[in-house]
Every structure is written in C-alpha cells, then in structure tokens.
C-alpha cells in the first residue's frame, strides 16, 4: 500500500520546517528538558503527582518542538543535526505516550512500580494501553480487550 499524497506532504512539511526556520529552539535543549522530567517523574518509583507533571512537561515540550524547533546545519551532506532533531521528535512522542499511559494505569505491574498503587489489579488492568497522537496535548488513550493468560500466570515482581 502506498502512502497517500497527504501523508507525504505532511512529512515533507515537517522536515522542511526544521530546515527552513532560521531561529528558534534547538533539539538538544528540548532533549535535555525531556531527560530531566522523564528521569525525575517516570523513573523507578512513580506516583500520580509526578506522572501528572511528566505529562504536562512533555505536552509543553511537544508544542515547543512543533512551533519552534530548527536546525543550524542546512547542509544536505551527512546532516546529523537534522537526524538528531528527527530522533528527538520521535522520542517526545514516545515519552508523552509513556507518561500518559503510566498516569492512567492505577496499579503496579512489571516495570511500573507506583507508590500510590503498590499492588497488581488483575480485575481491572489485564489489558494493553493503546495511544493515538492528538494534534494538541496528550494522546487519546484506549485499551485492548482483556488479555488471555495461557502459559504464564501474572506474578509479584520480586527477585
């Protein structure tokens, strides 16, 4: 299946904006801000306040990237400034979806260890989070049908 013309135009505009803007915010600065909020709020132990901050920070970083991000290197030869900016763009999407999904999941499971919900909640949360990117703000979340347990029963995460 071929990408539609609309999709190709959107991509060309997205990448073109990075190359054509003469000033603004550079990707490394936004990446550092993302590092700081994700490390502080979505690291090993999570709670609702921290996750809320992460979602707000990442939504703000998402907006700032969309309106302001630019690259200094305008060359078409081995442009690592552009590649780095595109990678940061995708990292922002992934981080925002991660933070939003973690905040909505009011339980601990696997790598998600919430101090405000320390136990697993198999009755309500045996399902996968699905996320749709929104033009503004955090993603729209939905869930898969209940997961079927076959060979491995859910266990408490201890070592």
């Amino acid at each position: 299946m071929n990408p539609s013309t609309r999709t190709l135009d959107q991509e060309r505009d997205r990448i073109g904006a990075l190359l054509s803007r003469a000033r603004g915010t550079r990707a490394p600065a936004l990446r550092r801000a993302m590092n700081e909020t994700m490390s502080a709020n979505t690291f090993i132990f999570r709670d609702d306040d921290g996750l809320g901050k992460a979602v707000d920070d990442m939504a703000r970083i998402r907006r700032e990237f969309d309106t302001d991000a630019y690259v200094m290197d305008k060359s078409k030869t081995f442009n690592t400034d552009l590649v780095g900016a595109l990678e940061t763009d995708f990292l922002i999407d992934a981080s925002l979806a991660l933070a939003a999904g973690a905040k909505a999941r009011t339980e601990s499971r696997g790598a998600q260890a919430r101090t405000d919900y320390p136990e697993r909640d198999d009755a309500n949360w045996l399902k996968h989070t699905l996320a749709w990117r929104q033009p503004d703000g955090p993603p729209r979340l939905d869930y898969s049908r209940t997961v079927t347990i076959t060979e491995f029963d859910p266990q408490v995460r201890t070592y």
Partner: protein
Amino acid sequence: MAQITLNIFRFDEAVDTVPHRDAVTVDIPETTTVLDALETAKAEVDGSISFRRSCRSAICGSCSMNINGVTGLACKTPCNTVMDENGVVVVDPMPNFQPMKDLVVHMDPFWDKYSRLKPYLQPKDADSAHDRERRVSPDDMKKLVDVANCIMCATCYALCPVVSVDPAFAGPAAIAYAYRFIEDVRDGQRTERIAQISEDYLWLCAHCYACSYCPKHVDPNDRIIDVKRAAIKDRVMMNERGPRHALVVGKTIKQTGMLAETEVIQGTIGRFNVRGLLKVAPLGLRMAAKGKMPPPFVKPIPKVDEVRTIFETLEVPVS
C-alpha cells in the same frame, strides 16, 4: 570545569573545494572525552559540526578520527591527555580516506577490502554431516580470540604508511581478519583465502608497527606475520618477491651467520631475471659511488654452526 577549545577541520564536499578550520570553546571538565567535547560543542555552539558516533564506549568503532595528529577513538580519549597548555585539542578526519563532511569520511575502500575476504565461515562440510554443532578446542579458539575483537574502526588503516602510498594495499584490518578464517579449523577455504590476501598485496606490509595503535589490542602486525608464515608453509605464490625475499634472508643468515645483501637482492629479484636486475642496477651504482657496495661474497662467521642449529631446531623455512 575548564575551557577546552576544539580546533576542528570543517569541510562539506557538496559545496567546498578547500577546507577551513573552526575553533570552538566549551566549558567542561578536562577529563571529558573528545567525543563528549564534540557533542557539547555541537549542542551548544555550532549544530553543523558533523561526526560519526554511536556507543561512546569503544565498541562500535564509529568515532575514529585524527586527534592531535594521531588517529584513535574520540570516545576513548580524555581531553586532558591530548590538549596543549592552552586547553586546545586539534581534531581532523582520519587520513588515508577521502573527506565527506567535517570529521566524516568515505569509508568504501575499507569495506571493499573487507568484503573481498569473504569474511564468513565457509565450512569444510555440510551442516547435515554433523549430529551436533562443530566443536573447536580451546587451544584452537585461542588463536582467533584477539582478532575477533576487531571493531572495524579503521584506525590501523588510517595510520598505515603503506596504504598512504599504495591504496591498493589490503591494509592491516583486512589481513588480520583473513587470519581469523585461515586458522579456523572449521573453514574449508584456507588455500583460497591465503591466495586472495596474497594477491591483495599481503607482502607490501613493511612491519612498521603503526597499526599497534589499535584501540582493541588486536595487534594486526603480529597477525600479518602469521599470515605470511601460513603463506610460506602452504607454499602460496612462492615465485613472488615477498615470499622469495623472506626465504633468501633466512637462507643467507643460516649459511653465513650474516645477511648477505648481494645474494639477498639476487634471490629476491631472481638470479636470471635480467629485466629485474637491470632495474636495480642504478641503485647499485649509486651505492658503489658512495662506497656502500656490500661485499659480493660473505665468509661464514666463526660460530656459524650454532646459528644453523637454531635454524634447524626452529624448522625455519629457507627455500
């Protein structure tokens, strides 16, 4: 924190005919690696500074570049080991490669020489002939371990003076990796591999040890010696200058206890190779004019028997 200045080679093959240099100063601890200094310079000062990098832990081989005149991995080089008294570090792309953009070079010739090796196991027999995996003894495996550490960073190739005068030379990395398969007991193409690397100018290696700067201690030079030994043992291309020279040097030392230069020249070129001998005749005349002509006959030294015993005990090939 210290003021570190990177003096960087700048060039874009799409727009420039000549390079220029930029001095970029960053405020970082002086123990920072040259790679991290470059990343800081790129993030804070000039986003167009271009360089290859990936793992930042000396295992991927991407960040090889010329630092203060010597090629090495930027991620493995702390600034305070290379900066001058003003905190300046000079950074250039690897030599022996065509520059593309700043510190990024065209790597194709290096990869070509590699792929010509057929750098994958070509087993002696079909998998179906074994009811379990092919076993290799620890002693046999030991021979391959050091070479297998090669990360293909091309530092050795960049430093090699033979590559710089003859780009057809296979280069240290390729020859060392040829060894990895020549001595693999499971491989069935030993003769073909020795022939292939001999044709790619194995014998041009001058054993200068420049490639001992290998950041992973592969020591390509020692492996190149091993490949030359294998070539003579298997008698591959014995009529070429390289093998002839190796044998006749050993032969005259065994015979007389001395390197008999006149005989070495004849043995290398060929006693009846008139064309070849005429080519070196001008050199011989210039040497004679300076009083440096070696004696035509060399008398064996008094204890030559002891020398011959050494050669026989070690089974040194001399013909």
